[in-house]
């Protein structure tokens, strides 16, 4: 069979590792060796151990909040650039992506510096005399994870929403106003439904990777901010239980997929009811 280079690369770099992961999830770890007798015992562990479920639900909850917050904050920015900026739109978009010219890790560290015990916010407030001791609730909790992720993923929300808004024919907005809509009704009846593909794209682009993110929770999350990816990483690392790690990864991948598809579908149906 002839394969195009792209297909070959995808097979090699994406399909093969996932297939390997699926394979591993049906095996068991015995000491330093892997027992390749197929079994569902790893999945039984994943679904029955309460700690895992809590961790998974927390991950979904945190990334849902991140998704909501990021899309809600990105929408007005994208709207502004698409509808209000008349000249040099490209410059605006370029400026909005400047934070993304540095590495993801550096951006997370930057938030650690901002939110930390002796960080920018605390030392700023102390030098202003507003507080006498550093605030401890800023860092190492789920809120810190949400704040950090919302910032680090912002461009992934702004760009797809911007594209969908930019594509809206301006005469449709004029027609809505002409037919009697004030600005708010017009937004709800025309702009929002027509920008839904951008919103869905943005939400998927944020929800999927943030659920599986382990850098941000491990750097700014503290013990309450631990997410499912941290657990998976430990299985492949310190604990050295690859089959359990694989089962956890496959399960959360499936769960994230199901959640993303069903929420997307629900949003489409809800918006299709707007007349």
């Amino acid at each position: 069979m002839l394969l195009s280079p792209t297909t070959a690369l995808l097979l090699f770099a994406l399909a093969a590792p996932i297939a390997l992961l699926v394979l591993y999830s049906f095996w068991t770890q015995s000491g330093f060796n892997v027992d390749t007798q197929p079994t569902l015992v790893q999945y039984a562990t994943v679904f029955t151990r309460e700690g895992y479920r809590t961790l998974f639900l927390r991950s979904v909850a945190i990334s849902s909040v991140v998704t909501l917050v990021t899309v809600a904050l990105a929408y007005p920015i994208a709207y502004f650039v698409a509808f209000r900026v008349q000249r040099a739109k490209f410059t605006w978009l370029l400026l909005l992506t400047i934070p993304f010219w540095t590495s993801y890790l550096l951006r997370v560290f930057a938030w650690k510096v901002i939110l930390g015990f002796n960080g920018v916010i605390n030392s700023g407030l102390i030098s202003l005399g507003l507080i006498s001791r550093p605030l401890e609730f800023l860092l190492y909790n789920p809120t810190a994870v949400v704040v950090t992720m919302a910032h680090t993923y912002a461009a992934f929300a702004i760009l797809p929403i911007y594209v969908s808004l930019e594509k809206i024919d301006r005469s449709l907005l004029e027609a809505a106003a002409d037919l009697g809509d004030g600005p708010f009704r017009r937004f709800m009846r025309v702009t929002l439904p027509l920008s839904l593909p951008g919103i869905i794209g943005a939400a998927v682009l944020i929800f999927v990777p943030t659920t599986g993110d382990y850098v941000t929770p491990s750097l700014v999350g503290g013990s309450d901010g631990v997410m499912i990816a941290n657990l998976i990483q430990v299985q492949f690392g310190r604990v050295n239980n690859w089959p359990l790690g694989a089962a956890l990864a496959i399960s959360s991948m499936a769960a994230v997929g199901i959640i993303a598809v069903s929420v997307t579908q629900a949003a489409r149906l809800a918006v299709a009811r707007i007349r």
Partner: protein
Amino acid sequence: MEGSDFIRIDKVTKQFGAATAVDGVSLHIAKGEFFSLLGPSGCGKTTLLRMIGGFAFPDEGRIVLDGADVTDLPPNRRPTNMVFQSYAIFPHLNVRDNIAYGLRVERMSAGERNARVDEALAMIRLSGYGERKAQQLSGGERQRVALARALVKRPKVLLLDEPLGALDKRLRETMQIELRQIQRDVGITFIFVTHDQEEALSMSDRVAVMEKGRVLQVADPKTLYERPVSRAVADFIGTMNFFEGRLVDLSNGKATVETAALGRVEASMPSGGTFAPGARVLIAIRPEKLVLSHEQPEAPFVPGKIVAASYLGDRSQIQVSISGADTPVAVVTQTSTAFRDGEFVYISWRSGGPLLIAE
């Protein structure tokens, strides 16, 4: 004009940066009138229409609709509706919901709304198309949906921004008749923007010819064609031959003009404008008011030579060069007599053909 105060456009001016799009335009339009704004692209007709609809606001002047000053009102608070050039059919809604869009803003029972939509669908002969999406419609169908969506609001004034421009010729001609029929049936005032002079003449009660942000002439189609007040209007509407000359006499509503090309010509006076004997003027003659013959006719006539003859089926368009005129004279003849390139012919003109126009 009597009773033409339904829409009053009063010295409206609109600037875009340094360019003046609409320059001190005043118009009075009567209730139930089919009124066209005609002019080349960039003449300000669309800007004027958008100001009537509330999509642009004049820098100076007022717009009064049915006694209410609407100059500064947004589109959703005006008794006007627009058929957009692109039709602006909502892509996320089906035909029925597109037409019902404006009715949902009004307080109205679902039953009444549905009845109004059904009525509108029947009017545009698209009953049974209600569930279709915009993408499934042809250009002509979209145009009709846009029309129904605007008319279902029962506006005092319907604004149409070159609604037939995107259609092919045959469909455009059908839609012209249909649009005129609908306008008569609903009795709503239409303001129709077009750059197509035939379209404007065939559909309108009155036409305003615009150029460079100004109105050159407002008149019914017959007057516009037969009594244009200026060279620009005469040039824009149909084909016109111009001959330079000097006014020698004015009497009994007739002007006598001495021209280099045609000699002494007796011309009809335009309705407006004042002329003094001795002034430099133009004689304008439509191609169909000229007569070609191989034999010498009764005076007055001029001899010429055919430089081009195009056969158009029901008529022929013939270019004749004559001495004293820089450009060949256009003549339209019936095809019963054959005229060929290079033939020597005589041009004479029907009485009432020559018009006097200020230079």
